[in-house]
């Protein structure tokens, strides 16, 4: 407990928690956006995150092999993000068209099972492609540290926190300020009514999948650059954790997913201070159960429970 009274260690842990929390939040948004509109859990979302990460890996490996990244590090990283987002978004749109749209009027269990099937398919496809080997992101930019007394903060951590906040702000503005965003909200509110008002519902659903996947891809590249190791199973645990975050915040609720992600990251980081590190996953899922008992609709509430 002595750790909790030390401000330096607290600040360090809060930064650690916000870093992983930002990543959880970006993935959680994909779950929540899709749930808000279709009332289904896209369990293949973790794999979209994984494909995004591999997209970024391919670009950075290519650029670092031909020496381009040594002279233009920022540009190469930007390239990696763009390519990863394009790959993941196309994959997301494709999944929606192939695996979910035909089942839209089927019983609620069918798209869920379809999603689990897609998830296993994508994992195995990537396993065959990479022969199941762990891949390592190349070091493009040196990691600098800001040292304040005992504290040491990595510039990567700061960039991940700021980057995820920026993306979330962008998403929030998109949903609330643009016409497409308005249409998304209308479809989420009442799909039939939106359809009668002349909104192309299929197009809006595809756009929702594309946005969710793009955010996951951005998270994937961040994870790749920060943690360096990626493999075909990398989407599973973050996917489950992000789903937990989405439920924590109130699934279907966009600010809820952001809050849930950061909340979960912080809980994991600070939880290590009061109990052994072995129990890190226990904290995450224990919290989920606790929140579901006390507030079944999540911290910020909205549509949960009876669906799925």
């Amino acid at each position, binding site marked *: 407990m002595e750790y909790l009274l030390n401000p330096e*260690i607290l600040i360090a842990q809060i930064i*650690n928690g916000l870093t992983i929390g930002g990543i959880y939040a970006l993935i959680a948004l994909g779950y929540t956006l899709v749930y808000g509109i279709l009332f289904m859990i896209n369990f293949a979302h973790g794999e979209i995150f994984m494909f995004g990460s591999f997209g970024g890996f391919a670009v950075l490996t290519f650029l670092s092999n031909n020496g381009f990244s040594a002279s233009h590090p920022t540009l190469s990283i930007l390239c990696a993000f763009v390519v990863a987002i394009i790959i993941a978004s196309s994959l997301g749109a494709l999944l929606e068209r192939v695996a979910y749209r035909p089942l839209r009027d089927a019983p609620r269990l069918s798209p869920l099972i379809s999603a689990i099937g897609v998830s296993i398919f994508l994992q195995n496809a990537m396993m065959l492609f990479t022969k199941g*080997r*762990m891949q*390592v992101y190349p070091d493009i930019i040196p990691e600098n540290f800001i040292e304040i007394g005992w504290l*040491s903060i*990595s510039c990567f951590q700061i960039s991940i926190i700021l980057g995820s906040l920026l993306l979330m702000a962008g998403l929030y503005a998109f949903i609330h300020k643009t016409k497409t965003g308005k249409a998304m909200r209308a479809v989420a509110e009442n799909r039939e009514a939106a359809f009668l008002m002349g909104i192309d519902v299929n197009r809006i659903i595809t756009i929702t999948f594309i946005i969710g996947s793009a955010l996951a891809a951005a998270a994937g590249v961040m994870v790749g650059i920060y943690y360096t190791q990626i493999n075909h199973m990398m989407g599973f645990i973050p996917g489950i954790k992000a789903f937990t975050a989405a439920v924590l915040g109130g699934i279907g609720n966009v600010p809820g997913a952001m809050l849930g992600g950061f909340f979960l990251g912080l809980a994991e*980081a600070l939880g*290590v201070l009061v109990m*052994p590190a072995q129990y890190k996953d226990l904290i995450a899922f224990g919290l989920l159960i606790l929140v579901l008992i006390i507030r079944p609709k999540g911290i910020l509430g909205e549509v949960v429970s009876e669906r799925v």
Partner: protein
Amino acid sequence: MNQKKNQWYCLLVIISLFFIPRLGYADKWGSIIIPAGKPIQIGLGSMLSGDYASMGIDIKNGAEMAVLEKKSILGHPVILQAEDDGCGGPTSVAIAEKMCNNPLVVGVVGYMCSGGSKPASDIHNKYKVLMISPSSTAMELTSRGIPVFFRTCWNDATQARCAADFVIKNNWKKIVVLHDKSDYGQSLAHDFMNHISKNGLKILATEGLTRGDKDFTPILTKIKFMRPELIYFGGMAAEGVLLARQMKRTGIRAYFMSDDGCYTVKDFIQAGGRATNGCYVTYAKKPDAQWVKRFESCYGHCQTFSPQAYDATNILLEAVTQTAKKQTDGSLIIDKKVLRDEVAGIRYKGITGEIAFNSHGDRTGSVVVIYKVVEENGKRFFKQFAH
């Protein structure tokens, strides 16, 4: 009342019936018959896909090289039957059943991880099929009286003692021990701590982490607060390299020391970048230089346990050559008990040194030494440390 008693007797009889064939079974070693024209198979179980696959594939390469060099025994071709055991309990058991029920398999090189070798050795004992592990170092593998288990690597106590002696010699006093909660990592960490505390030094903390996790900054931040001089990690390279990197990230200026699981150029030195410079690992003395040259011309960089796998395979092949008897119809007959005794009593001059086994199946006189990751002339490699 009486009826109830009868029921108990019935139950007792049924239970004892259950045991009778088993007792008889345990004594029977039997023999392996390789029909004419059929190949002799050497089994191999290691992780061929997944996080530690480069270590597993390295083991397979070592075994494959030995098999390719041997080509045939008494007119029967020798082939390697490699299976992916995923470095885990359930899969290793399934592979062990498969190997033991294959009549052409004379013995298995494996399994790779202690967590897989332990349950698999029970299966092998049931069928009396030899297994020689190139890489499972857990103590309990050789302390359970399994007659068919041998290993060409060292055990954890040897390795942990070597690491602990080095720590004591360097006079590092503030030590934190981490492990990955696996059979392998945990038993290493345990032996290391035992040895340290026997010498009157204190361990500041012990923590477990999860295999496959990527984020260790929360636990490292907590450790940083204790201001350790050394962090010892019992586990594999995938997590070890992240620890080394994230130690730099959290600003811990302690030494990092790990085990043979981290002795891999690809997954530790290359994957870790400069963050791994100055890290210590324990591993066997360098194998025969001539052999390394030959190996690297076929398979690329020699990683961790390929020399031990090469020796294990050769011992198996040597024992089969010595004990197989050719029948008039061209088939080979190998008595399992004789084969086992041949391996148990072998004096083999391998590329990792002289190999002989003690009565538990442990290798006698194998020496573990300390390596340090150094950067010289732009090349980064494991350098054997003064010993």
